[in-house]
């Protein structure tokens, strides 16, 4: 299961900011990919911070090659309020990235 965090974040504000830049489509795609990597790592960090050591291994196994059910069930069972925690963290990161891009664009 690869994109477990996407349910918790609306990426449109970031996409709009990237699309407003006067750069090529390929460059825009690269920025979106880089942003996706950042979201992915932050989602990993949030979940790992909440898990016991053994559960962390189960989680990493599920992320790498498990099924969607494994991962969703593990998150639900082991991370209290994981939907809220992930949503708050990822939205914060998104808003910070949007602000940074906007600042560079307007400087």
């Amino acid at each position, binding site marked *: 299961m*690869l994109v477990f965090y996407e349910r918790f974040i609306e990426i449109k504000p970031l996409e709009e900011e990237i699309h407003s830049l006067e750069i090529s489509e390929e460059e825009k795609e690269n920025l979106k*990919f880089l942003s996706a990597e950042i979201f992915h790592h932050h989602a990993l960090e949030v979940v790992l911070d909440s898990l016991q050591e053994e559960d962390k291994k189960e989680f990493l196994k599920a992320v790498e090659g498990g099924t969607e059910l494994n991962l969703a069930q593990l998150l639900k069972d082991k991370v209290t309020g994981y939907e809220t925690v992930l949503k708050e963290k990822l939205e914060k990161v998104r808003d910070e990235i949007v602000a*940074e891009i906007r600042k560079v664009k307007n400087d």
Partner: protein
Amino acid sequence: MPESKLDQIQKLLEKRKKQVVTAIGEKHSESLDWLKKNGLDLEELRENQIKRLAAATATGILLLSPGSMAPAGENHTSQNRSLDEGGLDLSDVANPGVFLAQTLKEKIAAQNESGVEDFIAANFGVNAKYEIGGYRMNVNIGLIGAEQHLYRWAGDQVENHLENDTDRQMFGRSGIAPHRGAYGYFGEPGSKLARDRERYYFAIQTFLSPNWQTDIKGTYNFFRFRKLVAINTKTGQAVVGVVGDAGPAKFTGKSYGGSPEIMHFLGLGSGPRKGEILLLFVDDPKDEIPLGPVSLGKESA
């Protein structure tokens, strides 16, 4: 020379990435050591995922003009279209698929789901549904992009997916994802069921389904290998397949992924390897509709 705005933004994002990777490494070194012992590090874990996320946007893989080729032995779905039940008379139509696609788009624009379902049943011979048992997809019309092959069972190899020279020529370059799909292996080793499911699999954003939050297990079981029909909204090419993976990521701008074979039979196997489709469930409780391309068949008045 001043640094370009693009360079500045890239640097900021790279810095953010480095910070979070470092933080994970500092806080979770034991887990990362364990990951390393299993042949992966955080970067590779991310790379495997991004590769799969990116598969739907890959434009660098060129296939050999598959539009006019049909692999030998494909199990085409054929049916008799019925003019009495609303099927359009295609006898004088130069390109029936395009003609049906244009009419289908008008039905979709009218936002009458039962009208679309009836039209597909009458003209494609498939009992298509927007909703079954209260389950819905997050979106029914959107862009589909090309995915890689997936492991059908433990120990599977990409070479075994290519059953003849035509397969090798058409689908060999698509490669295979680094691990199994989000719904696990496709069936028993060597079984026709597993072979057909992987050959005609879709990736859909099940994680965005409205049902996912309320009932994880029920939703997973509903979607796992659920039969779907896709129709190319420009050409009318249609194919029946199953849900075999989750994705693509929203940031790709696409809503669905398709196996190399699915993309071929939708007429999207070459060029940018993406295009707009309508994707609906197939209501087929007796499992009578085979997986594979849907031919329009012959009218029976």
